[in-house]
């Protein structure tokens, strides 16, 4: 399994976003699945996050213009869902499950270990921009607790040793 690093496009490059042909094609295709343009908002936002790494204000404006919505409305949707990044994320976003099953199976220790090892608190990121630590609610994989989601991938039944190896690997720039 390879966890793909997030490459967040810097905000300066996202002030006036125009969708390229590939994006435009994928958006047009998405629109065919929904009765109204507004209904396609969430999938279009996912597409943008995949493409730009995060949802910059310039991206919100472009999406709003494409779907005939107002930027204020799109901003409301983007900020409602915590999984849309409204600031550029680190290359690897470590999402530690804080819900009961994981917590009793060692999730709490994993979190404390990560905090100590990376020297950051929840919601913070390392100075080199490699890791970002956030606590999340149940990831729906209680059977294999404790679980950490890194970007889009699950790492299950983790021990502190496995986690350390994983962090070593990721921080060396290699993709796990």
């Amino acid at each position: 399994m390879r966890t793909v690093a997030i490459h967040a496009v810097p905000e300066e490059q996202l002030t006036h976003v125009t969708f390229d042909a590939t994006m435009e094609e994928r958006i047009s295709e998405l629109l065919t699945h929904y009765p109204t343009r507004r209904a396609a908002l969430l999938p279009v936002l996912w597409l943008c996050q995949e493409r730009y790494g995060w949802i910059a204000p310039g991206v919100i404006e472009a999406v709003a213009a494409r779907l005939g919505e107002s930027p204020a409305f799109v901003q409301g949707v983007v900020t409602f869902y915590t999984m849309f990044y409204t600031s550029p994320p680190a290359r690897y976003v470590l999402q530690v499950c804080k819900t009961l099953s994981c917590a009793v199976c060692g999730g709490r220790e994993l979190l404390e270990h990560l905090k100590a090892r990376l020297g950051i608190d929840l919601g913070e990121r390392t100075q080199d921009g490699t890791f970002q630590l956030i606590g999340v609610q149940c990831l729906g994989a209680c059977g294999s607790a404790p679980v950490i989601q890194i970007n889009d991938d699950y790492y299950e039944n983790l021990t502190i040793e496995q986690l350390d190896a994983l962090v070593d690997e990721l921080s060396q720039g290699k993709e796990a």
Partner: protein
Amino acid sequence: MPKVVSVTVDGRILAARAGESVLELLRRSGIWIPTLCFDPRVSAYGGCRLCLVSRRDRAGELVPACETPVVEGMVLETDSPAVHRARRRQLVLLLGEHRLDCPVCPTSGRCTLELLLHRLGIAGDDVRRWEVTATSGVQSPLIVHHPERCVLCTLCIRLCHEVQGVSALGLERVDGGIQVATFASRTLDCEYCGQCVAACPTGALQLRPPLDPVPRRVGTGLPTTCSLCPCGCQLLPAVRDGRVVAVESQLSWLPNRGQLCAKGRFAHDVLVSPERLTSPLVRLEGRLVPTSWERALQAVVEGVRQAQAQGRALVAFGTPRLTCEDAFLLQHFMRGTVGSPHVGVGLAAGARALVEGVRPVLGTARSTADFTDLAAADLVLILRADPSRTHPLVKSIVLAGMRRRSQQVVMAHALSGGLERHVDEFLLVRPLGEEALLYGICRHLLTESATRARQAAGVAGFDQWQAGVLHYTDEVVQGLTGIDPERVVALARRLKRAHRLVVVVPAGMGIPGDEAAVARAAAGLLVLLGCHRKPGGGLLVLGEKANLQGCLDVGLHPRLLPGGGSAEEPGWEPVHAMARAGAGEVGFLYLVGHDPLGGWPRATHRRDGLEGAGFVVVQDAFLTKTTRAANVVLPVSILAEREGTVVGADGVRRPLHAAVAPPPGVAPDGEIFRELARRLGMPLPSKEEVERSLAAVFEGHLRARHRPPLPTFMPPPPPPPPRTWRGTLLDVSPQLLHSGSVTRYSAVLRELAPIVAVRMAPEDVAAFGLTPGGRAHLTTGTGEEMMMVRVDRTVRPSSAVVLWQSNAEGLGAFLAVDGEARLVDVRRSR
């Protein structure tokens, strides 16, 4: 047909309309239900949960009345202890989000939340006091935002979205929770209608002082009609110490249902503008000097007598802002007292559309559709301009129609505006192309539908009309409109399918195209479709100024008599009259509320006419550009100082009630006409006599609605040669905040929208190397001007929006005749 559903409420059986909500039924039946987040103008939200009622047919389940549709056999309780308990609990929860600082809150006393606290009997002890802190999410020159008082009812957001179609506000998650915010915390850049503040049920959104004076309810006057455009909005000026300090409206008032635009709500500061004239002026040794009314009126009388003695013509133009009464008096003064047929509304946008466009085809110089028809139409075709810039209420009516999904809207014009992203179809027509588009549609209808053609063949003038229409072939229409023939065909079919079609023709100085020609073509199309006088169908011509319709109704037009008859000896049309004046044939020129040097285009003989006229009287509230040429200037009362009636674009006559007295030294227009007539020895009819004449006029119109004159097809002109447009279109048509005359004197509106500014799309500003707030140099073949650059996202690329009267000579001086379209060269200025 709406079905009737029977619902039991508190033991009574009520008849409900199928499809309505429980709340609508209860409110209609006089049952009090508390709400914070409900407003009949927008969709139900179910957010405040104060309208909970108990369903006895479902084991007492508590449901929100606003979001629950009535169902046959429903049994409801609205007044049980359980219901009250639930509402009180809900209100206490809401208060957890609300900083209770009523003693220092300016909204206290007219706050819905405060009222409900008292009404539901919540004591201070019930409320768990939370320290609510938040930072403002809405920055605006007009509005103060206190998110710590916000209960997230989202009324502001829904009104902005559904009624205004602006959607400048939304919800945003911030560190402290969720709050109302603009996009990216930008300063609120919207239509400044103030609806969000008016609807806020708490003190979360407030107007900045001094726009919202405290205390508010002091010396409140009677509701009156807005004089700034012909929508006929009803508003209530709040008066303190003899001054209008704020303007409000109410949900129950028609036609605007509590809505106002920035002009109606904020332009009242014009009344106390330091630039207002407060004394008559006469020209002495080349300079205008203040004088007494006695001497000013005597000078005018002498001017009239001299012109009469010299045998030169006497001409009067009255602004279509005059009330019906004053307009009647002015035409009576000219035709009766002075004995001259040369009286009219002057160069007034919409007058030609009604008199030369609608009248020849439909028999009367009146729109055949009103706002009720507009709301009931299943298809609305809007031509020439975007009503969100020219007539904001019309925009809200069609937005509501589209939201109900009972209406489709097609818009075709060459300008920019905010409505196009909401409409079902927008055709970007080349400048001046609307007439060709309409005839192109007619040609398709004639060739595709033999039935239509047969039905229309009975109408007078059909053969000649058809012969003319057939010249508008696909190729011709495409060359003039830039629209693909397939789209024209599709539009023709869409129009044919419509049962109730309203065609809207907005008028305004600077809108490209001949308003009369477009109105005539639209009237022909409606006759062909049989929709010209149907309920829910017809032609709606929107004049620019408040009482254009009323002025025409009472005969303030060189060709019309009171009641709509033709004048036996027609007077001169405005441009012709000015040309005659230039030739020295006019001895007396009376300009009531007209400013040719500032407000008329160049080739109207405005300059030589004023120079050649023997004696010029200007009657206005401000010192206009034309006063330079005046012999006498008479100051008049305006807006909320006036009494009388005005007729809106919808043909409805509405009253004006003076809320404040005019400043000392200022007189109403009608009084001046009376005084002059008395001095000339032929007094004007008394108030009662005028009202009797007007009553007859308007009863006549009412009768004509039921027994309408037969239509006549007017042959279209031969198609002009095709023209392509490359470059930047100069757009001097009305802007929402300014129409070009009175509103320019409002300090509030000037701050929101500077007058000497060119508004352009962001991409154009970048492409031309301009800087927002910097200066640009505008050049056409006939004029040049420096303007401040403003970025406006509603402006279409390749166009530059400038106010008609922005510069010294009126930017209209760039244009030779009204309706002309012109390209402009925009460069960075250093």
